[in-house]
Protein backbone atom coordinates (compact mmCIF):
# COMPACT_ATOMS: atom_id res chain seq x y z
CA UNK A 1 0.00 0.00 0.00
CA UNK A 2 2.79 2.38 0.88
CA UNK A 3 4.60 1.65 -2.33
CA UNK A 4 1.66 2.56 -4.50
CA UNK A 5 1.30 5.77 -2.53
CA UNK A 6 4.84 6.68 -3.50
CA UNK A 7 4.17 5.97 -7.10
CA UNK A 8 1.12 8.14 -7.03
CA UNK A 9 3.23 11.01 -5.80
CA UNK A 10 5.71 10.32 -8.55
CA UNK A 11 2.88 10.43 -11.01
CA UNK A 12 1.70 13.74 -9.65
CA UNK A 13 5.21 15.12 -9.81
CA UNK A 14 5.39 14.08 -13.45
CA UNK A 15 2.09 15.79 -14.17
CA UNK A 16 3.26 19.01 -12.55
CA UNK A 17 6.37 19.01 -14.73
CA UNK A 18 4.38 18.56 -17.88
CA UNK A 19 1.88 21.27 -16.99
CA UNK A 20 4.00 23.77 -18.83
CA UNK A 21 3.11 22.00 -22.07
CA UNK A 22 -0.65 22.21 -21.31
CA UNK A 23 -1.38 18.77 -22.67
CA UNK A 24 -5.02 17.91 -23.09
CA UNK A 25 -6.36 14.56 -21.91
CA UNK A 26 -6.79 13.52 -25.51
CA UNK A 27 -3.13 14.09 -26.33
CA UNK A 28 -2.13 12.17 -23.21
CA UNK A 29 -4.46 9.34 -24.15
CA UNK A 30 -3.05 9.25 -27.67
CA UNK A 31 0.46 9.16 -26.28
CA UNK A 32 -0.23 5.94 -24.43
CA UNK A 33 -2.08 4.25 -27.30
CA UNK A 34 0.21 1.27 -27.03
CA UNK A 35 -1.05 0.64 -23.52
CA UNK A 36 -4.58 0.52 -24.87
CA UNK A 37 -3.48 -2.07 -27.39
CA UNK A 38 -2.19 -4.18 -24.50
CA UNK A 39 -5.63 -3.85 -22.90
CA UNK A 40 -7.56 -5.01 -25.97
CA UNK A 41 -7.85 -8.75 -25.21
CA UNK A 42 -9.02 -8.13 -21.66
CA UNK A 43 -11.43 -5.38 -22.71
CA UNK A 44 -12.92 -7.57 -25.40
CA UNK A 45 -13.53 -10.23 -22.80
CA UNK A 46 -14.97 -7.64 -20.43
CA UNK A 47 -17.56 -6.45 -22.89
CA UNK A 48 -18.50 -9.76 -24.44
CA UNK A 49 -18.55 -12.02 -21.37
CA UNK A 50 -19.21 -9.62 -18.50
CA UNK A 51 -21.17 -6.58 -19.69
CA UNK A 52 -23.09 -7.96 -22.63
CA UNK A 53 -24.67 -10.60 -20.33
CA UNK A 54 -25.60 -7.75 -17.98
CA UNK A 55 -27.50 -6.21 -20.85
CA UNK A 56 -29.05 -9.65 -21.26
CA UNK A 57 -30.58 -9.17 -17.82
CA UNK A 58 -33.28 -7.21 -19.65
CA UNK A 59 -34.97 -10.49 -20.45
CA UNK A 60 -35.96 -10.73 -16.80
CA UNK A 61 -38.50 -8.05 -17.69
CA UNK A 62 -39.49 -9.52 -21.03
CA UNK A 63 -41.15 -12.60 -22.39
CA UNK A 64 -37.99 -13.74 -24.07
CA UNK A 65 -38.25 -15.72 -27.27
CA UNK A 66 -34.97 -17.13 -28.49
CA UNK A 67 -35.85 -16.58 -32.18
CA UNK A 68 -36.77 -12.94 -31.65
CA UNK A 69 -33.72 -12.02 -29.61
CA UNK A 70 -33.51 -9.69 -26.65
CA UNK A 71 -34.73 -6.43 -28.19
CA UNK A 72 -37.61 -7.78 -30.25
CA UNK A 73 -39.06 -9.93 -27.49
CA UNK A 74 -42.17 -8.31 -25.98
CA UNK A 75 -42.05 -6.69 -22.54
CA UNK A 76 -43.49 -8.75 -19.75
CA UNK A 77 -46.92 -7.62 -18.66
CA UNK A 78 -46.88 -6.64 -15.85
CA UNK A 79 -43.21 -5.76 -15.92
CA UNK A 80 -42.36 -7.72 -12.77
CA UNK A 81 -44.39 -10.74 -13.83
CA UNK A 82 -41.51 -13.20 -13.52
CA UNK A 83 -40.45 -11.88 -10.12
CA UNK A 84 -44.02 -12.14 -8.89
CA UNK A 85 -44.26 -15.66 -10.28
CA UNK A 86 -41.11 -16.60 -8.38
CA UNK A 87 -42.27 -15.16 -5.08
CA UNK A 88 -45.63 -16.88 -5.36
CA UNK A 89 -44.06 -20.34 -5.45
CA UNK A 90 -43.38 -22.24 -2.26
CA UNK A 91 -40.00 -23.18 -3.69
CA UNK A 92 -38.94 -19.52 -3.69
CA UNK A 93 -39.10 -18.90 0.04
CA UNK A 94 -37.49 -22.22 0.72
CA UNK A 95 -34.63 -21.59 -1.74
CA UNK A 96 -34.06 -18.09 -0.36
CA UNK A 97 -34.02 -19.43 3.18
CA UNK A 98 -31.66 -22.28 2.25
CA UNK A 99 -29.27 -19.91 0.49
CA UNK A 100 -29.15 -17.49 3.41
CA UNK A 101 -28.86 -20.15 6.11
CA UNK A 102 -26.17 -22.09 4.26
CA UNK A 103 -24.07 -19.02 3.50
CA UNK A 104 -24.41 -17.59 7.00
CA UNK A 105 -23.42 -20.88 8.54
CA UNK A 106 -20.51 -21.18 6.14
CA UNK A 107 -19.39 -17.69 7.09
CA UNK A 108 -19.82 -18.05 10.84
CA UNK A 109 -18.09 -21.43 11.00
CA UNK A 110 -15.79 -21.24 8.00
CA UNK A 111 -14.39 -17.75 8.46
CA UNK A 112 -12.88 -17.83 11.97
CA UNK A 113 -11.24 -21.24 11.60
CA UNK A 114 -8.49 -20.18 9.15
CA UNK A 115 -7.76 -17.15 11.36
CA UNK A 116 -7.46 -19.40 14.39
CA UNK A 117 -5.34 -21.87 12.45
CA UNK A 118 -3.00 -19.09 11.32
CA UNK A 119 -2.61 -17.84 14.90
CA UNK A 120 -1.80 -21.32 16.17
CA UNK A 121 0.50 -22.18 13.29
CA UNK A 122 2.39 -18.99 13.95
CA UNK A 123 3.22 -20.37 17.39
CA UNK A 124 5.04 -23.33 15.86
CA UNK A 125 8.61 -22.18 16.11
CA UNK A 126 10.58 -24.36 13.76
CA UNK A 127 10.31 -22.85 10.30
CA UNK A 128 10.72 -26.20 8.55
CA UNK A 129 7.95 -27.77 10.55
CA UNK A 130 5.67 -24.77 9.99
CA UNK A 131 6.24 -24.96 6.24
CA UNK A 132 5.49 -28.69 6.22
CA UNK A 133 2.22 -28.22 8.07
CA UNK A 134 1.29 -25.46 5.64
CA UNK A 135 2.06 -27.61 2.62
CA UNK A 136 -0.06 -30.43 4.00
CA UNK A 137 -3.04 -28.24 4.76
CA UNK A 138 -3.03 -26.60 1.30
CA UNK A 139 -3.42 -29.94 -0.43
CA UNK A 140 -7.21 -30.26 -0.55
CA UNK A 141 -7.53 -26.77 -2.01
CA UNK A 142 -6.26 -28.00 -5.36
CA UNK A 143 -8.90 -30.61 -5.77
CA UNK A 144 -12.13 -29.99 -7.60
CA UNK A 145 -15.56 -30.14 -6.02
CA UNK A 146 -16.19 -33.37 -7.89
CA UNK A 147 -13.13 -34.99 -6.34
CA UNK A 148 -14.03 -33.70 -2.87
CA UNK A 149 -17.55 -35.03 -3.27
CA UNK A 150 -16.23 -38.36 -4.53
CA UNK A 151 -14.12 -38.68 -1.41
CA UNK A 152 -17.10 -37.76 0.78
CA UNK A 153 -19.25 -40.32 -1.02
CA UNK A 154 -16.82 -43.20 -0.69
CA UNK A 155 -16.21 -42.42 2.96
CA UNK A 156 -19.72 -41.52 4.11
CA UNK A 157 -22.01 -43.66 1.94
CA UNK A 158 -24.06 -46.54 3.34
CA UNK A 159 -21.17 -48.99 2.93
CA UNK A 160 -18.41 -46.42 3.38
CA UNK A 161 -15.78 -46.52 6.07
CA UNK A 162 -17.54 -44.16 8.49
CA UNK A 163 -20.75 -46.16 8.51
CA UNK A 164 -18.79 -49.38 8.79
CA UNK A 165 -17.19 -48.10 11.94
CA UNK A 166 -20.55 -46.95 13.30
CA UNK A 167 -22.29 -50.27 12.67
CA UNK A 168 -19.31 -52.30 13.94
CA UNK A 169 -19.43 -50.43 17.21
CA UNK A 170 -23.11 -51.15 17.56
CA UNK A 171 -24.56 -47.94 16.18
CA UNK A 172 -27.19 -47.52 13.52
CA UNK A 173 -26.27 -46.73 9.94
CA UNK A 174 -26.57 -43.01 9.13
CA UNK A 175 -27.53 -41.86 5.65
CA UNK A 176 -25.05 -39.00 5.55
CA UNK A 177 -25.22 -38.34 1.83
CA UNK A 178 -28.99 -38.17 1.51
CA UNK A 179 -30.40 -37.19 4.92
CA UNK A 180 -31.53 -33.57 5.04
CA UNK A 181 -30.06 -32.92 8.47
CA UNK A 182 -26.61 -34.02 7.33
CA UNK A 183 -26.39 -31.84 4.23
CA UNK A 184 -25.21 -28.65 5.95
CA UNK A 185 -22.71 -30.30 8.31
CA UNK A 186 -21.16 -32.20 5.38
CA UNK A 187 -21.18 -29.14 3.13
CA UNK A 188 -19.60 -26.84 5.68
CA UNK A 189 -17.28 -29.44 7.17
CA UNK A 190 -15.84 -30.42 3.81
CA UNK A 191 -15.55 -26.72 2.92
CA UNK A 192 -13.47 -26.07 6.02
CA UNK A 193 -11.40 -29.17 5.31
CA UNK A 194 -10.75 -27.98 1.78
CA UNK A 195 -10.02 -24.29 2.26
CA UNK A 196 -8.69 -23.83 5.78
CA UNK A 197 -5.01 -24.07 4.86
CA UNK A 198 -5.29 -21.91 1.80
CA UNK A 199 -7.43 -19.21 3.40
CA UNK A 200 -4.95 -19.02 6.25
CA UNK A 201 -2.12 -17.92 3.91
CA UNK A 202 -3.12 -14.31 3.99
CA UNK A 203 -3.34 -14.19 7.78
CA UNK A 204 -0.03 -16.01 8.11
CA UNK A 205 1.55 -13.38 5.86
CA UNK A 206 0.08 -10.65 8.06
CA UNK A 207 1.44 -12.34 11.19
CA UNK A 208 4.93 -12.65 9.72
CA UNK A 209 4.86 -8.92 9.04
CA UNK A 210 4.49 -8.03 12.74
CA UNK A 211 7.65 -6.38 14.04
CA UNK A 212 9.58 -8.51 16.59
CA UNK A 213 9.94 -5.46 18.82
CA UNK A 214 6.39 -5.89 20.06
CA UNK A 215 7.13 -9.42 21.23
CA UNK A 216 10.41 -8.42 22.82
CA UNK A 217 8.69 -5.71 24.80
CA UNK A 218 5.91 -8.10 25.80
CA UNK A 219 8.37 -10.76 26.93
CA UNK A 220 10.21 -8.16 29.04
CA UNK A 221 6.90 -7.39 30.71
CA UNK A 222 6.40 -11.08 31.37
CA UNK A 223 3.47 -11.63 29.04
CA UNK A 224 2.71 -15.31 28.47
CA UNK A 225 2.44 -16.78 24.99
CA UNK A 226 -1.28 -16.80 25.18
CA UNK A 227 -1.36 -13.14 26.17
CA UNK A 228 0.97 -12.26 23.31
CA UNK A 229 -1.43 -13.91 20.89
CA UNK A 230 -4.34 -12.11 22.49
CA UNK A 231 -2.85 -8.62 22.75
CA UNK A 232 -0.37 -8.46 19.87
CA UNK A 233 -1.23 -10.98 17.15
CA UNK A 234 -4.98 -10.54 17.07
CA UNK A 235 -5.07 -6.72 17.05
CA UNK A 236 -2.28 -6.61 14.46
CA UNK A 237 -4.04 -8.83 11.93
CA UNK A 238 -7.46 -7.28 12.53
CA UNK A 239 -7.35 -5.02 9.42
CA UNK A 240 -6.64 -8.05 7.20
CA UNK A 241 -9.38 -9.99 8.94
CA UNK A 242 -11.94 -7.24 8.38
CA UNK A 243 -10.95 -6.86 4.73
CA UNK A 244 -11.32 -10.58 4.10
CA UNK A 245 -14.60 -10.58 5.96
CA UNK A 246 -16.05 -7.86 3.71
CA UNK A 247 -14.88 -9.75 0.63
CA UNK A 248 -16.54 -12.92 1.87
CA UNK A 249 -19.74 -11.12 2.77
CA UNK A 250 -19.64 -9.62 -0.71
CA UNK A 251 -20.10 -13.08 -2.12
CA UNK A 252 -22.51 -14.33 0.47
CA UNK A 253 -25.37 -15.13 -1.90
CA UNK A 254 -23.01 -16.80 -4.35
CA UNK A 255 -22.43 -19.67 -1.98
CA UNK A 256 -20.88 -22.54 -3.94
CA UNK A 257 -23.82 -23.88 -5.91
CA UNK A 258 -21.66 -26.31 -7.84
CA UNK A 259 -21.01 -28.26 -4.68
CA UNK A 260 -24.60 -27.97 -3.49
CA UNK A 261 -25.77 -29.27 -6.86
CA UNK A 262 -23.37 -32.19 -6.69
CA UNK A 263 -24.51 -33.01 -3.17
CA UNK A 264 -28.18 -32.87 -4.05
CA UNK A 265 -29.54 -36.31 -3.52
CA UNK A 266 -33.19 -37.22 -3.06
CA UNK A 267 -34.42 -36.33 0.42
CA UNK A 268 -31.85 -33.61 1.12
CA UNK A 269 -33.25 -31.39 -1.65
CA UNK A 270 -35.41 -29.71 1.01
CA UNK A 271 -32.30 -28.01 2.34
CA UNK A 272 -29.89 -28.25 -0.60
CA UNK A 273 -32.04 -26.43 -3.15
CA UNK A 274 -30.44 -22.99 -3.39
CA UNK A 275 -31.51 -20.04 -5.51
CA UNK A 276 -28.71 -20.78 -7.96
CA UNK A 277 -29.37 -24.51 -8.29
CA UNK A 278 -33.01 -23.61 -8.85
CA UNK A 279 -32.00 -21.12 -11.59
CA UNK A 280 -30.05 -23.88 -13.30
CA UNK A 281 -32.95 -26.27 -13.20
CA UNK A 282 -35.70 -23.98 -14.42
CA UNK A 283 -33.44 -21.99 -16.72
CA UNK A 284 -31.28 -24.48 -18.52
CA UNK A 285 -33.00 -27.78 -17.91
CA UNK A 286 -36.51 -26.57 -18.65
CA UNK A 287 -35.60 -23.49 -20.74
CA UNK A 288 -37.71 -20.88 -18.91
CA UNK A 289 -35.13 -18.22 -19.69
CA UNK A 290 -36.95 -15.08 -18.57
CA UNK A 291 -38.18 -16.58 -15.33
CA UNK A 292 -34.76 -18.00 -14.41
CA UNK A 293 -33.03 -14.73 -15.27
CA UNK A 294 -35.41 -12.88 -12.97
CA UNK A 295 -34.59 -15.29 -10.14
CA UNK A 296 -30.88 -14.92 -10.80
CA UNK A 297 -31.15 -11.13 -10.91
CA UNK A 298 -32.97 -11.10 -7.60
CA UNK A 299 -30.08 -13.12 -6.13
CA UNK A 300 -27.43 -10.78 -7.54
CA UNK A 301 -29.19 -7.66 -6.30
CA UNK A 302 -29.64 -8.98 -2.78
CA UNK A 303 -25.97 -9.97 -2.80
CA UNK A 304 -24.90 -6.56 -3.99
CA UNK A 305 -26.98 -4.75 -1.36
CA UNK A 306 -25.45 -6.89 1.39
CA UNK A 307 -21.97 -6.08 0.09
CA UNK A 308 -22.61 -2.35 0.04
CA UNK A 309 -24.01 -2.44 3.59
CA UNK A 310 -21.09 -4.49 4.89
CA UNK A 311 -18.64 -2.17 3.21
CA UNK A 312 -20.40 0.87 4.65
CA UNK A 313 -20.38 -0.52 8.20
CA UNK A 314 -16.71 -1.46 7.97
CA UNK A 315 -15.83 1.98 6.64
CA UNK A 316 -17.70 3.71 9.50
CA UNK A 317 -16.34 1.53 12.27
CA UNK A 318 -12.80 0.76 11.21
CA UNK A 319 -11.95 2.84 8.19
CA UNK A 320 -11.34 -0.26 6.09
CA UNK A 321 -13.25 -0.72 2.86
CA UNK A 322 -12.97 -2.17 -0.58
CA UNK A 323 -14.44 0.83 -2.34
Amino acid at each position, binding site marked *: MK*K*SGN*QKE*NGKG*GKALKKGHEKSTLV*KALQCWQL*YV*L*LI*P*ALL*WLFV*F*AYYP*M*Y*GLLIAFKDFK*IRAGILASPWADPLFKHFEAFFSTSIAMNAIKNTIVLSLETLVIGFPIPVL*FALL*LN*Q*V*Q*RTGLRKTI*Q*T*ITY*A*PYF*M*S*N*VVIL*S*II*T*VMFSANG*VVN*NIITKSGGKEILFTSAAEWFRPLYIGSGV*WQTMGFNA*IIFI*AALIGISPEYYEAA*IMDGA*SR*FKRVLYIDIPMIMP*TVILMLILQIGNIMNVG*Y*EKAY*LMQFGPNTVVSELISTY*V*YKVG*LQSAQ*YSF*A*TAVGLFN*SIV*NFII*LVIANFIAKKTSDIS*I*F
Partner: protein
Amino acid sequence: MAGKKKAMKMSKGDRVFMIANAVIMVLVCVIVIYPLYYVLLASVTDPVVVNSGKLLLYPEAWYTEGYVTTLKYAPLWTAYKNTIIYTVVGTLVSLVCTIPAGYALSRMDLVGRKPIMFLFTFTMFFSGGMIPLYLTIQQLNIYNTLWAMVLPVAVSAYNLIVCRSFFDTSVPIELLEAAKIDGCSDFGFFFKIAIPLSKTIIAVMALFYATAMWNQFFNALMYLQDYDKMPLQVVLRDLVLMNQANQMGSSGAEMVTRQKLAEQLKYCIVVVSAFPLLCIYPFLQKYFAKGVTIGAVKG
Protein backbone atom coordinates in the same frame (compact mmCIF):
# COMPACT_ATOMS: atom_id res chain seq x y z
CA MET B 1 8.84 -28.81 20.16
CA ALA B 2 10.34 -25.46 20.89
CA GLY B 3 11.41 -26.74 24.28
CA LYS B 4 15.13 -27.12 23.72
CA LYS B 5 15.96 -23.53 22.98
CA LYS B 6 13.70 -21.74 25.35
CA ALA B 7 13.16 -24.28 28.08
CA MET B 8 14.70 -21.96 30.62
CA LYS B 9 12.38 -19.08 29.88
CA MET B 10 9.19 -21.03 29.44
CA SER B 11 6.71 -20.77 32.23
CA LYS B 12 4.38 -23.61 33.07
CA GLY B 13 1.49 -21.88 31.33
CA ASP B 14 3.53 -21.47 28.18
CA ARG B 15 4.47 -25.11 28.21
CA VAL B 16 0.85 -26.19 28.48
CA PHE B 17 -0.02 -23.83 25.65
CA MET B 18 2.72 -25.20 23.40
CA ILE B 19 1.79 -28.81 24.07
CA ALA B 20 -1.88 -28.12 23.37
CA ASN B 21 -0.88 -26.33 20.19
CA ALA B 22 1.30 -29.25 19.07
CA VAL B 23 -1.56 -31.68 19.65
CA ILE B 24 -3.93 -29.50 17.63
CA MET B 25 -1.45 -29.22 14.76
CA VAL B 26 -0.93 -32.99 14.62
CA LEU B 27 -4.69 -33.53 14.67
CA VAL B 28 -5.22 -31.02 11.87
CA CYS B 29 -2.61 -32.71 9.69
CA VAL B 30 -4.09 -36.15 10.31
CA ILE B 31 -7.59 -34.93 9.48
CA VAL B 32 -6.39 -33.37 6.24
CA ILE B 33 -4.19 -36.25 5.13
CA TYR B 34 -6.08 -39.32 6.24
CA PRO B 35 -9.02 -39.17 3.78
CA LEU B 36 -6.57 -38.80 0.90
CA TYR B 37 -4.37 -41.57 2.20
CA TYR B 38 -7.41 -43.77 2.75
CA VAL B 39 -8.58 -43.36 -0.85
CA LEU B 40 -5.09 -44.19 -2.08
CA LEU B 41 -4.91 -47.30 0.09
CA ALA B 42 -8.42 -48.46 -0.77
CA SER B 43 -7.57 -48.26 -4.46
CA VAL B 44 -4.98 -51.03 -4.07
CA THR B 45 -6.56 -53.09 -1.31
CA ASP B 46 -8.90 -56.05 -1.63
CA PRO B 47 -12.45 -54.62 -1.40
CA VAL B 48 -13.34 -57.35 1.10
CA VAL B 49 -10.84 -55.84 3.51
CA VAL B 50 -11.97 -52.28 2.71
CA ASN B 51 -15.60 -53.16 3.37
CA SER B 52 -14.84 -54.90 6.62
CA GLY B 53 -14.81 -51.44 8.13
CA LYS B 54 -11.25 -51.53 9.34
CA LEU B 55 -9.32 -48.31 9.52
CA LEU B 56 -6.70 -48.81 6.84
CA LEU B 57 -3.23 -47.77 7.90
CA TYR B 58 -0.93 -49.60 5.51
CA PRO B 59 -1.47 -51.65 2.34
CA GLU B 60 -2.56 -55.15 3.26
CA ALA B 61 -4.07 -57.68 0.83
CA TRP B 62 -3.09 -56.16 -2.49
CA TYR B 63 -5.71 -56.18 -5.21
CA THR B 64 -5.02 -54.20 -8.34
CA GLU B 65 -7.76 -55.37 -10.70
CA GLY B 66 -9.34 -51.94 -10.28
CA TYR B 67 -6.43 -50.20 -11.94
CA VAL B 68 -6.31 -52.76 -14.74
CA THR B 69 -9.96 -52.00 -15.56
CA THR B 70 -9.54 -48.25 -15.08
CA LEU B 71 -6.58 -48.07 -17.42
CA LYS B 72 -8.53 -49.95 -20.09
CA TYR B 73 -11.61 -47.70 -19.83
CA ALA B 74 -11.42 -45.48 -22.90
CA PRO B 75 -13.98 -42.72 -22.01
CA LEU B 76 -11.91 -41.79 -18.99
CA TRP B 77 -8.87 -41.20 -21.15
CA THR B 78 -10.81 -39.21 -23.75
CA ALA B 79 -11.96 -37.02 -20.87
CA TYR B 80 -8.40 -36.75 -19.64
CA LYS B 81 -7.24 -35.64 -23.05
CA ASN B 82 -10.06 -33.06 -23.23
CA THR B 83 -9.19 -31.64 -19.84
CA ILE B 84 -5.54 -31.30 -20.80
CA ILE B 85 -6.47 -29.49 -24.03
CA TYR B 86 -8.90 -27.15 -22.24
CA THR B 87 -6.36 -26.43 -19.55
CA VAL B 88 -3.47 -25.69 -21.92
CA VAL B 89 -5.48 -23.55 -24.35
CA GLY B 90 -7.40 -21.87 -21.53
CA THR B 91 -4.29 -20.97 -19.60
CA LEU B 92 -2.63 -19.51 -22.69
CA VAL B 93 -5.68 -17.42 -23.57
CA SER B 94 -5.98 -16.25 -19.98
CA LEU B 95 -2.35 -15.22 -19.84
CA VAL B 96 -2.59 -13.29 -23.09
CA CYS B 97 -5.58 -11.41 -21.69
CA THR B 98 -4.36 -10.86 -18.15
CA ILE B 99 -0.63 -10.12 -18.24
CA PRO B 100 -0.63 -7.22 -20.77
CA ALA B 101 -3.79 -5.76 -19.21
CA GLY B 102 -2.32 -6.05 -15.74
CA TYR B 103 0.74 -4.18 -16.92
CA ALA B 104 -1.21 -1.45 -18.72
CA LEU B 105 -3.40 -0.90 -15.66
CA SER B 106 -0.37 -0.54 -13.44
CA ARG B 107 0.81 2.47 -15.44
CA MET B 108 -0.09 5.73 -13.75
CA ASP B 109 -0.03 7.61 -17.04
CA LEU B 110 -2.78 5.46 -18.57
CA VAL B 111 -5.67 7.84 -19.19
CA GLY B 112 -8.88 6.35 -17.78
CA ARG B 113 -7.05 3.90 -15.58
CA LYS B 114 -9.43 4.22 -12.65
CA PRO B 115 -12.71 3.83 -14.53
CA ILE B 116 -11.35 0.86 -16.48
CA MET B 117 -10.19 -0.75 -13.26
CA PHE B 118 -13.61 -0.14 -11.77
CA LEU B 119 -15.30 -1.86 -14.70
CA PHE B 120 -13.23 -4.96 -14.00
CA THR B 121 -13.63 -4.87 -10.22
CA PHE B 122 -17.38 -4.49 -10.57
CA THR B 123 -17.57 -7.89 -12.26
CA MET B 124 -16.34 -9.46 -9.02
CA PHE B 125 -19.51 -8.42 -7.24
CA PHE B 126 -22.17 -8.29 -9.89
CA SER B 127 -22.75 -10.31 -13.03
CA GLY B 128 -25.36 -11.02 -15.60
CA GLY B 129 -25.77 -14.44 -14.13
CA MET B 130 -26.17 -17.90 -15.50
CA ILE B 131 -28.87 -17.55 -18.13
CA PRO B 132 -27.74 -14.36 -19.91
CA LEU B 133 -24.21 -15.76 -20.13
CA TYR B 134 -25.58 -18.99 -21.52
CA LEU B 135 -27.56 -17.09 -24.15
CA THR B 136 -24.46 -15.06 -25.02
CA ILE B 137 -22.57 -18.27 -25.64
CA GLN B 138 -25.41 -19.53 -27.83
CA GLN B 139 -25.41 -16.29 -29.81
CA LEU B 140 -21.66 -16.38 -30.35
CA ASN B 141 -22.05 -19.87 -31.78
CA ILE B 142 -19.43 -21.29 -29.48
CA TYR B 143 -21.84 -23.59 -27.62
CA ASN B 144 -20.50 -27.14 -27.46
CA THR B 145 -16.99 -26.12 -28.55
CA LEU B 146 -13.64 -25.72 -26.86
CA TRP B 147 -14.19 -21.95 -26.74
CA ALA B 148 -17.25 -22.29 -24.53
CA MET B 149 -14.99 -23.83 -21.91
CA VAL B 150 -12.16 -21.36 -22.38
CA LEU B 151 -13.51 -17.88 -23.12
CA PRO B 152 -16.14 -17.23 -20.41
CA VAL B 153 -13.51 -17.80 -17.72
CA ALA B 154 -10.61 -16.22 -19.61
CA VAL B 155 -10.24 -13.26 -17.26
CA SER B 156 -10.73 -13.20 -13.53
CA ALA B 157 -10.90 -9.71 -12.07
CA TYR B 158 -9.21 -10.96 -8.93
CA ASN B 159 -6.25 -12.32 -10.90
CA LEU B 160 -6.05 -9.09 -12.85
CA ILE B 161 -5.78 -7.11 -9.61
CA VAL B 162 -3.06 -9.45 -8.34
CA CYS B 163 -1.21 -9.00 -11.61
CA ARG B 164 -1.52 -5.22 -11.57
CA SER B 165 -0.32 -5.09 -7.95
CA PHE B 166 2.72 -7.10 -8.94
CA PHE B 167 3.70 -4.68 -11.71
CA ASP B 168 2.97 -1.76 -9.37
CA THR B 169 5.53 -2.93 -6.88
CA SER B 170 8.05 -4.91 -8.90
CA VAL B 171 8.79 -2.82 -11.96
CA PRO B 172 10.36 0.39 -10.67
CA ILE B 173 9.16 3.59 -12.30
CA GLU B 174 12.76 4.79 -12.65
CA LEU B 175 13.33 1.92 -15.05
CA LEU B 176 10.50 3.16 -17.26
CA GLU B 177 11.74 6.74 -17.14
CA ALA B 178 15.25 5.67 -18.10
CA ALA B 179 13.93 3.53 -20.95
CA LYS B 180 11.74 6.40 -22.19
CA ILE B 181 14.76 8.71 -22.33
CA ASP B 182 16.47 6.10 -24.50
CA GLY B 183 13.46 6.25 -26.80
CA CYS B 184 11.89 2.99 -25.80
CA SER B 185 8.20 2.63 -26.73
CA ASP B 186 5.57 1.19 -24.39
CA PHE B 187 5.54 -2.03 -26.41
CA GLY B 188 9.30 -2.23 -26.26
CA PHE B 189 9.33 -1.66 -22.53
CA PHE B 190 6.59 -4.21 -21.89
CA PHE B 191 8.06 -6.98 -24.02
CA LYS B 192 11.77 -6.42 -23.46
CA ILE B 193 11.90 -5.20 -19.87
CA ALA B 194 8.66 -5.81 -17.96
CA ILE B 195 8.05 -9.39 -19.15
CA PRO B 196 11.53 -10.68 -18.34
CA LEU B 197 11.13 -9.14 -14.86
CA SER B 198 7.83 -10.83 -14.25
CA LYS B 199 8.49 -14.57 -14.44
CA THR B 200 7.01 -14.94 -10.96
CA ILE B 201 3.69 -13.36 -11.80
CA ILE B 202 3.42 -15.34 -15.02
CA ALA B 203 3.96 -18.54 -13.05
CA VAL B 204 1.44 -17.48 -10.41
CA MET B 205 -1.17 -16.55 -13.03
CA ALA B 206 -0.59 -19.73 -15.04
CA LEU B 207 -1.12 -21.77 -11.89
CA PHE B 208 -4.23 -19.93 -10.77
CA TYR B 209 -5.84 -20.21 -14.18
CA ALA B 210 -4.70 -23.76 -14.86
CA THR B 211 -6.11 -25.10 -11.58
CA ALA B 212 -9.41 -23.33 -12.15
CA MET B 213 -9.55 -24.72 -15.68
CA TRP B 214 -8.63 -28.24 -14.66
CA ASN B 215 -11.36 -28.25 -12.02
CA GLN B 216 -14.15 -26.79 -14.17
CA PHE B 217 -17.29 -28.84 -13.88
CA PHE B 218 -20.45 -26.78 -14.01
CA ASN B 219 -19.53 -24.84 -17.12
CA ALA B 220 -18.97 -28.09 -18.97
CA LEU B 221 -22.39 -29.23 -17.88
CA MET B 222 -23.94 -26.01 -19.16
CA TYR B 223 -21.96 -25.22 -22.28
CA LEU B 224 -21.08 -28.63 -23.71
CA GLN B 225 -23.37 -31.23 -25.16
CA ASP B 226 -21.41 -34.09 -26.71
CA TYR B 227 -20.18 -36.63 -24.27
CA ASP B 228 -16.87 -37.08 -26.05
CA LYS B 229 -16.08 -33.41 -25.40
CA MET B 230 -16.69 -33.60 -21.67
CA PRO B 231 -13.76 -32.94 -19.35
CA LEU B 232 -12.54 -35.28 -16.67
CA GLN B 233 -14.67 -33.74 -13.90
CA VAL B 234 -17.94 -34.58 -15.62
CA VAL B 235 -16.91 -38.16 -16.36
CA LEU B 236 -15.63 -38.51 -12.82
CA ARG B 237 -18.99 -37.37 -11.49
CA ASP B 238 -20.87 -39.82 -13.66
CA LEU B 239 -18.69 -42.74 -12.67
CA VAL B 240 -18.35 -42.10 -8.96
CA LEU B 241 -21.27 -39.95 -7.86
CA MET B 242 -23.86 -41.35 -10.26
CA ASN B 243 -22.67 -44.88 -9.78
CA GLN B 244 -21.95 -45.70 -13.39
CA ALA B 245 -18.74 -47.39 -12.37
CA ASN B 246 -20.78 -50.58 -11.99
CA GLN B 247 -20.96 -50.88 -15.74
CA MET B 248 -17.25 -50.48 -16.34
CA GLY B 249 -16.10 -54.02 -15.67
CA SER B 250 -15.97 -56.51 -18.52
CA SER B 251 -19.37 -58.06 -19.06
CA GLY B 252 -17.99 -61.58 -19.12
CA ALA B 253 -16.80 -61.47 -15.54
CA GLU B 254 -18.71 -63.20 -12.79
CA MET B 255 -21.20 -61.27 -10.71
CA VAL B 256 -19.12 -61.48 -7.55
CA THR B 257 -15.94 -60.22 -9.19
CA ARG B 258 -17.88 -57.40 -10.81
CA GLN B 259 -19.37 -56.19 -7.58
CA LYS B 260 -16.05 -56.43 -5.88
CA LEU B 261 -14.56 -54.40 -8.70
CA ALA B 262 -17.27 -51.74 -8.76
CA GLU B 263 -16.40 -50.59 -5.25
CA GLN B 264 -12.69 -50.48 -5.90
CA LEU B 265 -13.08 -48.77 -9.25
CA LYS B 266 -14.41 -45.65 -7.54
CA TYR B 267 -11.26 -45.31 -5.52
CA CYS B 268 -9.05 -45.96 -8.54
CA ILE B 269 -10.84 -43.35 -10.63
CA VAL B 270 -10.53 -40.73 -7.90
CA VAL B 271 -6.84 -41.48 -7.58
CA VAL B 272 -6.23 -41.37 -11.32
CA SER B 273 -8.01 -38.03 -11.71
CA ALA B 274 -6.88 -36.20 -8.58
CA PHE B 275 -3.43 -37.42 -7.75
CA PRO B 276 -1.40 -36.10 -10.67
CA LEU B 277 -2.25 -32.59 -9.50
CA LEU B 278 -1.58 -33.48 -5.88
CA CYS B 279 1.83 -34.84 -6.82
CA ILE B 280 3.04 -31.66 -8.48
CA TYR B 281 1.47 -29.15 -6.12
CA PRO B 282 4.11 -29.30 -3.35
CA PHE B 283 6.59 -27.97 -5.90
CA LEU B 284 4.30 -25.21 -7.07
CA GLN B 285 2.54 -24.19 -3.88
CA LYS B 286 5.01 -21.45 -3.03
CA TYR B 287 3.78 -19.62 -6.12
CA PHE B 288 0.21 -19.89 -4.90
CA ALA B 289 1.16 -18.45 -1.55
CA LYS B 290 3.00 -15.68 -3.36
CA GLY B 291 -0.01 -14.87 -5.51
CA VAL B 292 -2.28 -14.60 -2.51
CA THR B 293 0.13 -12.30 -0.71
CA ILE B 294 0.66 -10.06 -3.73
CA GLY B 295 -3.09 -9.71 -4.07
CA ALA B 296 -3.41 -8.79 -0.42
CA VAL B 297 -1.22 -5.73 -0.79
CA LYS B 298 -4.00 -3.96 -2.61
CA GLY B 299 -6.95 -5.82 -1.19
